[in-house]
């Protein structure tokens, strides 16, 4: 009962993905309010960075508190390049991801650290980066922020609010598909072995440190992309948005959505971004709720909202079978 395994049938996964994609495509067409589209795009950007975090926490067992730093590096790189140097958006997009990935390479030795020490070292890195963003005024605008970042454009086409929305959706879908393929590959199986038993994996010839560092760099790359989207979406960057609280926020998304599930990371991101929008009345309770949720979900096991959905489906299936056959039968899926 300690940790529930998340398990869905192939049909359920397919239906779930199709419905989610359909909702995300239809949402801005049904509800044309600019603010709604703006917030939804923000949630998708958060979801991209949550996917990176999920790869670390859920698939390679690394508790990183450094994601805000990579998010910030991506955002400022793209913001500065497009604003000060007139670099086209698409080029800046690629460079911002690479910048985050390269900066994570400098941290690669840290991935040797285990568990809590990795957490505290990456937290330290986030604090250093946010101080640089705040203090190097000549480059980042300091605490005034970086203003008037151009809208993203593809060739001569300047994207509107709706265009940015679909750009975010495109990147999100791409990262989601890529990550699912990644964890299903040989690479993913090696990660699984490391998660199950690090010593055993090492003795079967898996270079644990290398695999962990690769995850670290991939997560940074994706988070850098998310940062770039954020820069051109809000068009104003403030160092406050990239403090260690952002790292914790990304952690909450993954923990609440469900550790070990890519879909969970996305769901968690939407919950964390959208909940405060719809609970304006309890604005000051927002963080109390998130803190309590974090403790609660960690106490229940680690499968988060996705685990709850999985459990509900399992019960529903069991009830259906019972009705059909008059007695419970052992199914292929276990809770």
């Amino acid at each position, binding site marked *: 009962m*300690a940790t529930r395994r998340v398990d869905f049938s192939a049909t359920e996964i397919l239906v779930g993905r199709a419905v989610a994609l359909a909702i995300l495509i239809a949402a801005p067409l049904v509800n044309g309010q600019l603010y709604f589209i703006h917030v939804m795009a923000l949630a998708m950007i958060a979801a991209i960075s949550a996917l990176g975090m999920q790869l670390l926490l859920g698939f390679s067992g690394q508790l990183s508190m450094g994601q805000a730093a990579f998010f910030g590096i991506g955002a400022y790189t793209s913001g500065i390049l497009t604003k000060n140097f007139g670099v086209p958006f698409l080029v800046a997009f690629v460079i911002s991801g690479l910048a985050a990935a390269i900066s994570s390479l400098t941290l690669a030795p840290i991935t040797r650290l285990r568990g809590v020490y990795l957490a505290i070292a990456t937290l330290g890195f986030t604090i250093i980066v946010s101080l640089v963003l705040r203090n190097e005024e000549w480059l980042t605008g300091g605490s005034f922020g970086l203003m008037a970042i151009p809208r993203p454009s593809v060739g001569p086409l300047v994207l509107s609010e709706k265009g940015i929305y679909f750009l975010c959706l495109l990147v999100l879908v791409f990262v989601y598909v890529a990550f699912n393929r990644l964890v299903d590959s040989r690479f993913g199986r090696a990660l699984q072995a490391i998660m199950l038993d690090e010593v055993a994996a090492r003795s079967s010839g898996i270079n644990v440190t290398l695999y962990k560092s690769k995850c670290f760099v991939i997560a940074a790359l994706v988070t850098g992309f998310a940062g770039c989207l954020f820069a051109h979406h809000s068009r104003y960057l403030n160092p406050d948005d990239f403090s260690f609280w952002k790292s914790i926020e990304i952690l909450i998304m993954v923990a609440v959505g469900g550790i070990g599930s890519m879909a969970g990371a996305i769901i968690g991101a939407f919950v964390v971004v959208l909940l405060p929008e719809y609970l304006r009345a309890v604005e000051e309770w927002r963080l109390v709720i998130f803190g309590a949720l974090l403790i609660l979900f960690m106490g229940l096991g680690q499968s988060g909202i996705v685990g709850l959905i999985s459990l509900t489906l399992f019960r529903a299936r069991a009830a259906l079978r019972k009705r059909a056959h008059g007695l419970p039968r052992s199914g292929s899926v276990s809770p």
Partner: protein
Amino acid sequence: MQPSQLVELAVGGFATGAIYGLIGLGFSMIIRSTGILHFAQGEIMMLGAMFGWMVVAWIPLSFVVVLLIGMLFSGLASALIYLVVYRAMQVRDIPLMNIVIATIGMSILLQNVSMLIWGSEPMSYPKFFAVETYRMGPVHISPQVLWVFALGFGLMILLQAFLAFTRTGIALQAAAQDPETAQLMGVDLTRSTALTFLISGMMAGAAGVLLGSMFFASFNMGFIIGIKAFVAATLGGVGSIGGAMLGGLIFGLIETFSPQWISSGYRDAVGMTLLILILLALPGGLVGLFSRRS
């Protein structure tokens, strides 16, 4: 810099160092006995500072009494949190990493509940100490700084004595070193871990009142200071009480003197860079240098 100025700065550094030491000690004790990196340790410190301030705003008490009240409140809060939350998770075999994430949740929860209770304004303590500085030749030292240092350091020595010379203290050390054997020898692990949380909470509470009396108390004072205290404990050597004290004092000095060379905007970066370097190059901390086991 003049020599007298150097001494004044050093004493100030020792005072901050004593505060870091007190908090870092709690980190050390908890991580040694449970493996949990207690991210809410800074918030436990904050609870002591806020509660102490609240009491002293009601009834004008002497500083030592406020200090004891702050310690008691933080200690009880810490033990209660352990028993209700972390203990419940340990019993259910929740992975350590999840408990660590839950301590982050606890940190957020405590901060924001405190903000709802006490508001978001920083609260200043009444002046407990004489404003006139002690003079030793050209050196001027404020009584407050001296007292903070003396009380902080005194508490750490008291704790060290408790752990080394009392039956309970020795049992605590045994339980931290080898839980299973200690249990076979009749040590109640739940009780000893709860006691560990109680003591580390009391030390943090003392740090809170000391810090509050020097500057101010506010709901968000804890997190960064907690992390820096962890840096200090890592510098000294995680898991070692003497290491936490030593690390605290050295880190206090480093932080006090670093603005002489580095822009003050990067004050916190000094500690974090140090943290990453130590973790990579010297995982055993300074204490590890002297007691290297095979």
